């Protein structure tokens, strides 16, 4: 993978100048590459990873992992119904998986009732949805490679040979 992407994947706020210095490129060329990736959709967006547990005024949020069983449609497979499901704003992630069910989706809402209502009123009655199994999340430890616990400081001694 292009090292520009590798750097940005770790730090979306890395500046053009820094990336250029790290990779011995001209800032202008880095800018062009990034623009190209953004245009092609290789870079979709830049966002902060927030640990909501540490945000005092964050609205409460309940998340559930939901296993969804589907009836595939002729010619379309699961894509059409998946689209209907992931288009709901409550659905933050949606994956087609192998195994005993078909879709794994992650749904969030401000409380259990909200999520339950979404499942009962929107998801379950949908055509082609055969059944759902819901797991409410209790605690987040690690998400997308980021550990949500403050890491301890480096314990190296300040100077050594």
């Amino acid at each position: 993978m292009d090292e520009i992407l590798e750097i940005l994947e770790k730090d979306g706020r890395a500046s053009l100048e820094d990336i250029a210095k790290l990779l011995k490129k001209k800032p202008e060329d880095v800018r062009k590459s990034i623009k190209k990736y953004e245009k092609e959709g290789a870079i979709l967006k830049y966002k902060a990873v927030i640990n909501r547990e540490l945000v005092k005024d964050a609205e409460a949020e309940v998340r559930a992992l939901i296993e969804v069983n589907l009836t595939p449609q002729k010619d379309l497979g699961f894509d059409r119904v998946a689209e209907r499901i992931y288009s709901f704003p409550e659905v933050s992630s949606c994956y087609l998986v192998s195994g005993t069910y078909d879709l794994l989706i992650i749904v969030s809402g401000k409380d259990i009732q909200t999520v339950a209502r979404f499942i009962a009123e929107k998801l379950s009655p949908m055509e082609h949805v055969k059944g759902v199994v819901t797991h409410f999340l209790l605690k987040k430890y690690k998400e997308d490679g980021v550990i949500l616990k403050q890491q301890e400081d480096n314990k190296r001694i300040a100077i050594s040979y």
Partner: protein
Amino acid sequence: MKNIIAKKVEQMQPSGIRAFFDLVLGMKDVISLGVGEPDFVTPWPIREAGIFSLEHGFTSYTSNKGLVKLRLSLKHFLKHKYGLEYSADEEMLITVGVSEGVDLVLRTILENGDKVIIPVPSYVSYGPVTELAGGIPVYLNTKEHDFKITPSELEKVIDKKTKAIILNYPTNPTGVSYTRRELEAINKVLLKHKVIVITDECYDELTYDFAHTAFATLSGAKENTVYLNGFSKSYAMTGWRIGWACGPKEIIAAMTKIHQYTIMCVPITSQMAACEALVSGKKAVEEMKREYIRRREFVVSELNRIGLICFMPEGAFYAFPSIKRSGMSSMEFSQALLKEQKVAVVPGTAFGASAEGYIRISYASSLENLKEALNRIEKFLKGRIK
């Protein structure tokens, strides 16, 4: 307390540097670019293997030479990586880091008065340990040749009492390394004069511009070389204290004798973790290396921009800029930088008087730290650079 401490030990202390180190350790909020170890922690699979071994009750001594499993893994690792073939049984010893390896080999081969060539600036232990073993260090100054050993300079310092040379590349503190061709030329001189080669290749994985050449792979060199390396730098395992020595079986057998009486064996936890490092560490090593390469670019270009002339180091994680334009000595520069801007670097003179006019900057530090430190150094240099 008079006459209690043996004279050769009493004379060992590198005086001025210790005081500077104490100064650094006593200060708060210092950004340190003076650290000689990776800023990564040991990759989790390796740490986990150590924990697993403890949980399963691996708490005993091992064979003096090291766990058979580890030596066999190492044998395959070296074969695969360098095409080097060492017998796990007779030509290999697991040591407490390269440090122990250096001590063992010097004590094994030196008679009183034998000379050991040490290219300088160098890592700090070679000279004192040579003296402890009864040898005489002969310092070969490399400064005039871009900190590289040249065959003709080497030839000049060899005489009848020359027993060995200690080669460390990529080099701490300069970051300099050698291509295969350069090493072949050096090897020719050493073979001609039958000088034993002790190589400390602990930064081998951190070679950036060309492939690292293990000295023992050079033509005719293997029978003449004690090859030392370790897990510290490549796998960010400094605190585990584990490395290896490979070489001719007579030398390894003799080293093992000292090792069995002084150390017995390397802690088993470290040995178990090292097994895992050889099996699964490759990816982590490559990731760390890529990160170091980028920081090297960053640090060297910034140093040159702010007025400290710095060559591009070929390996390790050190930059070795000249501070001569400041008109200060290495020690004055380092002390003033620490006091005024709270940035710690190591004065070049810590690695031998020949490195006056230079400082060692370690880029084994986060980009954020490096940026802030370089900003502060730039401020420090304002009005000082001529």
